[in-house]
């Protein structure tokens, strides 16, 4: 509750800030202080102190895991703004408006981590998506940005329509919007195997897959990620996608029972399709930005494993995966932003000119590929462990590992370009503090890779 209220207030304040001062630096610093306030407010709620405490009538349910997910996403957003703040200032004329949009998106995030009613799911998704359409199109003179924004908007509202039809059919079958209540028929004590219920759940599943860009509903992702300004692609591919996954898991934790034995079949199909499309297509990309877009589809395939079971392992796995994936992706995009063009060739010879930069980029790529000693390794390990605990077939695990091996191929192409191909890297000049910020992310990735339990100690004690 604290996070929802404080983020909305901060969003409104940032809108006024853009009117009070024109200095990008001041606006950025106010935004950063706001992020810290938001983190503090959420922390206070974890400790049991509420700004306002009222009965939401079962609309929202706050539990420690949801609050912890909030915390992780807010800290990631803070890191993201801290690193990319100057780049955000270069887009458009009103930097503070972008920070206002970030706060509104974070409001949507905090609803998505705590909803207990399909109405709040719908509202959370909309609060998350509508500002994103604006962010995607924020480079107003650039045709690619326009195109990405219109495409994202049309497809996003289409999937909202599908989501709403799904919710309505579920309501028609059960007479309630609550997440947990209506699955078992109170008279017969049997699972409601109703046609409307199944159809509604399938539509809901399709729509949520669209939001997290899982195949076969991923078509918008490469175009939108490619067309959006690079700093905002970084935000969309990490924090927003992570929030989508948390919402996805929250919906289907309880509702999956109604789908019975078909649930693992549908889910396995989507997982295999996502891994296949994401990894295989990423191999053939020539632009690093587009490669990262496809890699985010492939990583979404891995994150979908968390939907397989219902235990604490799944929650732990998805939280760790979100952090590992987001840190590495934010870092890679932060390097990419400084490039003059986004082809693989522009990385040629980077190790000669900027050895430190090449080293941290390598570390981020290691983490995405899941090499030991980086966060990505334990994220993948926890995820596969959760999959086996949930009773999935061994074949799915083998498929996952095979595709992880494929992903190494296209990640290492970048490393090869940096270290083994000589050339002049097409990079804008960097200052020392920017490199320092990237080192902070690299150190975080190493810490998470050596002590993954560190994060969960905080969750349980």
């Amino acid at each position, binding site marked *: 509750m604290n996070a929802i209220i404080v983020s909305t207030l901060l969003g409104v304040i940032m809108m006024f800030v853009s009117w009070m001062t024109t200095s990008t630096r001041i606006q950025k610093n106010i935004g950063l202080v706001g992020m810290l306030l938001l983190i503090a407010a959420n922390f206070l709620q974890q400790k049991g102190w509420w700004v306002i405490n009222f009965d939401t009538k079962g609309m929202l349910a706050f539990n420690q895991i949801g609050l912890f997910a909030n915390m992780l996403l807010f800290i990631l957003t803070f890191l993201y703004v801290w690193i990319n703040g100057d780049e955000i200032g270069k887009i458009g004329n009103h930097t503070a408006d972008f920070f206002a949009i970030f706060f509104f998106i974070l409001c949507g995030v905090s609803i998505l981590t705590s909803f207990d009613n399909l109405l709040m799911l719908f509202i959370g998704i909309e609060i998350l998506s509508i500002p994103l359409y604006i962010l995607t199109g924020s480079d107003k003179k650039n045709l*690619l940005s*326009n*195109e990405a924004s*219109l495409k994202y*908007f049309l497809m996003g509202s*289409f999937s909202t329509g599908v989501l709403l*039809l799904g919710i309505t059919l579920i309501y*028609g079958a059960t*007479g309630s919007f609550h997440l947990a209540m209506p699955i078992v028929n109170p008279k017969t004590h049997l699972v409601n195997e109703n046609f409307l219920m199944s159809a509604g759940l399938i539509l809901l599943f399709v729509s949520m897959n669209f939001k997290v860009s899982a195949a076969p509903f991923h078509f918008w992702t490469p175009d939108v990620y*490619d067309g959006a300004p690079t700093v905002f692609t970084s935000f969309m591919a990490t924090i927003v996608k992570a929030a989508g996954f948390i919402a996805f898991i929250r919906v289907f934790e309880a509702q999956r029972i109604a789908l019975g034995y078909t649930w693992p079949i549908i889910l396995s199909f989507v997982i295999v399709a996502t891994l296949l499309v994401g990894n295989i297509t990423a191999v053939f990309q020539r632009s690093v930005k587009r490669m990262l877009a496809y890699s985010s589809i492939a990583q979404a395939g891995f994150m979908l494993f968390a939907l397989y079971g219902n235990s604490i392992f799944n929650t732990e796995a998805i939280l760790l995966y979100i952090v590992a994936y987001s840190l590495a992706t934010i870092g890679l995009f932060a390097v990419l932003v400084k490039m003059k063009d986004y082809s693989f060739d522009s990385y040629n010879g980077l190790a000669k000119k900027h050895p430190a930069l090449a080293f941290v980029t390598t570390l981020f790529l290691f983490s995405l590929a899941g090499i030991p000693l980086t966060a990505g390794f334990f994220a993948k390990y926890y995820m596969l462990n959760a999959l086996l605990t949930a009773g999935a077939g061994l074949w799915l695990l083998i498929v996952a590992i095979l595709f992880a091996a494929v992903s190494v191929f296209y990640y290492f192409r970048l490393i090869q370009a940096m270290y083994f191909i000589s050339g002049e890297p097409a990079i804008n000049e960097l200052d020392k503090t920017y490199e320092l910020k990237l080192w902070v992310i690299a150190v975080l990735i190493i810490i998470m890779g050596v002590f993954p339990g560190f994060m969960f100690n905080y969750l349980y004690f």
Partner: protein
Amino acid sequence: MPIQYYIFFCLTLFSIGVIGVLTRRNAIIVFMCIELMLNAVNLLLVAFSKMYHGAALQLAPQSTAGIDAQIFVFFIMVVAAAEVSVGLAIIVMMFRNTHSIDINFLNRLKN
């Protein structure tokens, strides 16, 4: 009237919207078709609400069962309005740059 009629009618409306989104090339018309989808859902929600409310009234005259769906309809309307404002702004922005609202223009990213 039995609820099945409402379901089939609303699903037909929804399908018309889907077909429109998939086949039309004008951004505004695609947009209108999306609105048609949302409104089909609204109608269905109201029908379900009436169904549950009527059933609950026969058991208890003071019952408020089924009201939540009508509240949902208001939320859908509000969100649809918010989407319209952003969507039209995006379409206007594109029109300024390309002087067209044809979706076939949207193929620069597919290289």
